[in-house]
């Protein structure tokens, strides 16, 4: 019976080639293989976001007058609404962490090298999109913390010369954070960003299938020295079952986090109230926030904040263009490892400083 259905589908969809190809796909197995799982993990968490996000959309209202109340409604009146909302919030954080881990593992294992430049490019853009998802989604509950965090966050864009004010007005839908900002960021969060992200994810996955998993240079070199082959495990079922294992653990973690540390509702945003003390953005923006706090007001006569933003933008550009700048030789790869390590350490230290500042 199932054979006949399969036959019927195969005649019309002709997926035989794809399925056969997947059956033959293998994944290298070496000491760094564990990092291969982070890409799929990010994809899994993205799927969770899309699912819980769609559920939230059934009850959420994107206007300043009703946003907070609708989230309160979801969390108190809708059966399991508290679970859907908390999973959405926690999964967002886990997804950012997973995407960052994925990026840095690819960086340190040099998987960005030719011919995977486009994969790297689409990946960095996806990370930026993930951060954009986090930023736009953060405002949607329209509570005090998210309102002021959005105001502070969009203010940073004003540091850009010439077009800074324009960028701020584009992000806010006006000069200040208002209901217009909410509607606009909502539109980005549920329509624009998902559309772009879907396209990039499709491209990214296609390229990964085309090129297979990259083997780190050190592993390849050792295998060549030993005159042996690099162990490989079949994608189906070995890698896939291990993937499923990891995904199920994360699912259990999300359920536990949502039950024991539910995402709080906060107090409704009041645009006319003064900003409460200790306003800060979500943890993944904390390093930038803290850096801007430590930057002196002027460096060699130029606005300090502008310089900091410029440096960060330069860093992002360097990250984007990494495959074209380095990776071809062992020397450049060493530079990449040191630069990546320094960047990671810097971001970690800044995040730590920011968290310590709030704790007492």
């Amino acid at each position: 019976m199932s054979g006949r259905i399969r036959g019927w589908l195969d005649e019309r969809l002709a997926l035989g080639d794809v399925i056969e190809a997947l059956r033959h796909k293998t994944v290298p197995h070496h000491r760094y293989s564990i990092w291969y799982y982070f890409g799929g993990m990010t994809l899994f968490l993205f799927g969770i976001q899309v699912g819980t996000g769609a559920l939230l959309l059934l009850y959420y209202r994107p206007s300043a007058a009703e946003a907070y109340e609708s989230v309160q409604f979801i969390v108190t009146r809708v059966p399991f609404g508290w679970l859907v909302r908390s999973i959405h919030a926690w999964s967002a954080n886990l997804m950012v962490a997973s995407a960052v881990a994925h990026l840095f593992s690819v960086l340190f294992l040099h998987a960005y090298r030719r011919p995977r430049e486009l994969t790297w490019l689409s990946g960095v853009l996806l990370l930026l999109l993930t951060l954009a998802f986090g930023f736009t989604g953060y405002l949607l509950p329209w509570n005090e913390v998210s309102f002021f965090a959005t105001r502070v966050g969009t203010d940073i864009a004003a540091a850009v010369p010439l077009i800074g004010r324009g960028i701020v007005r584009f992000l806010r839908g006006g000069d200040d954070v208002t209901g217009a900002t909410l509607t606009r960021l909502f539109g980005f969060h549920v329509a624009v960003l998902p559309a772009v992200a879907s396209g990039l994810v499709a491209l990214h996955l296609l390229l990964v299938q085309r090129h297979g998993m990259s083997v780190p240079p050190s592993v390849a070199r050792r295998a060549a020295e030993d005159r042996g082959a690099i162990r490989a495990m079949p994608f189906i079922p070995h890698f896939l079952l291990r993937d499923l294992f990891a995904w199920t653990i994360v699912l259990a973690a999300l359920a536990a986090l949502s039950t024991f540390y539910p995402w709080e509702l906060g107090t409704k945003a009041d645009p006319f109230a003064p900003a409460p003390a200790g306003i800060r953005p979500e943890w993944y923006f904390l390093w930038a926030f803290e850096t801007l706090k430590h930057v002196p007001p002027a460096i060699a006569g130029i606005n300090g904040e502008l310089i900091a933003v410029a440096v960060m933008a330069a860093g992002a550009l360097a990250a984007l263009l990494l495959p074209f700048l380095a990776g071809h030789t062992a020397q450049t790869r060493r530079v990449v490892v040191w630069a990546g390590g320094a960047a990671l350490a810097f971001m970690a230290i800044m995040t730590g400083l920011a968290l310590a500042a709030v704790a007492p």
Partner: protein
Amino acid sequence: MPARGHGRKWPISGLSACRRRGAARLGVQKFPHRPKNSSTFLSTDCVSLLLHPVDPRNSAPGRRSVVNWLLGLWGGGVCGAVLYPVARYLAPPEVPEAATQSVMAGSAQSLAPNSGRVVAFGSRPAIVIRTAAGDLRAFSATCTHLDCTVQYRPDLQRIWCACHNGQYDLNGRNVAGPPPRPLEAFDVNVKDDQIALSRKS
């Protein structure tokens, strides 16, 4: 993670090996039909690197199917544990929408002229009044002095606070006693004999 090769080396992974041998790209070349009853991967070209026969140790059907059956059981349970909340979530709740922008305040007919009724609006009280002339007014019922709940006094035709004798007129303005500010006014509408209060937009 289990199965670190068990002391055996696995061949070089997929495509890099294929390219080295100049073989066709994955997915473009049609693969020969697999022999039936084989649980292994078979192919005649470069991908034959991945050929490996069935390990006789694991071929006992009884053992495998028990594991698969258990997997199906627990997997089904996990799926159920995911789908049950989703299904409950999708069904509309008793109160279909948040009652903070507007709330029902009871029957309009049963509110006689020159009388008032206190109802809940969100987590704070509201007062609906039908004046002697017959029109409906509604205000926040939290006294602006010290937060007591006000009531309607038909003899005074005013809203009155029992705590310190504060009084508001029928426009919500504080006219006597300690209250420093007027009462917040709400919009009143009647639909099908039900009074609906909503915050002024």
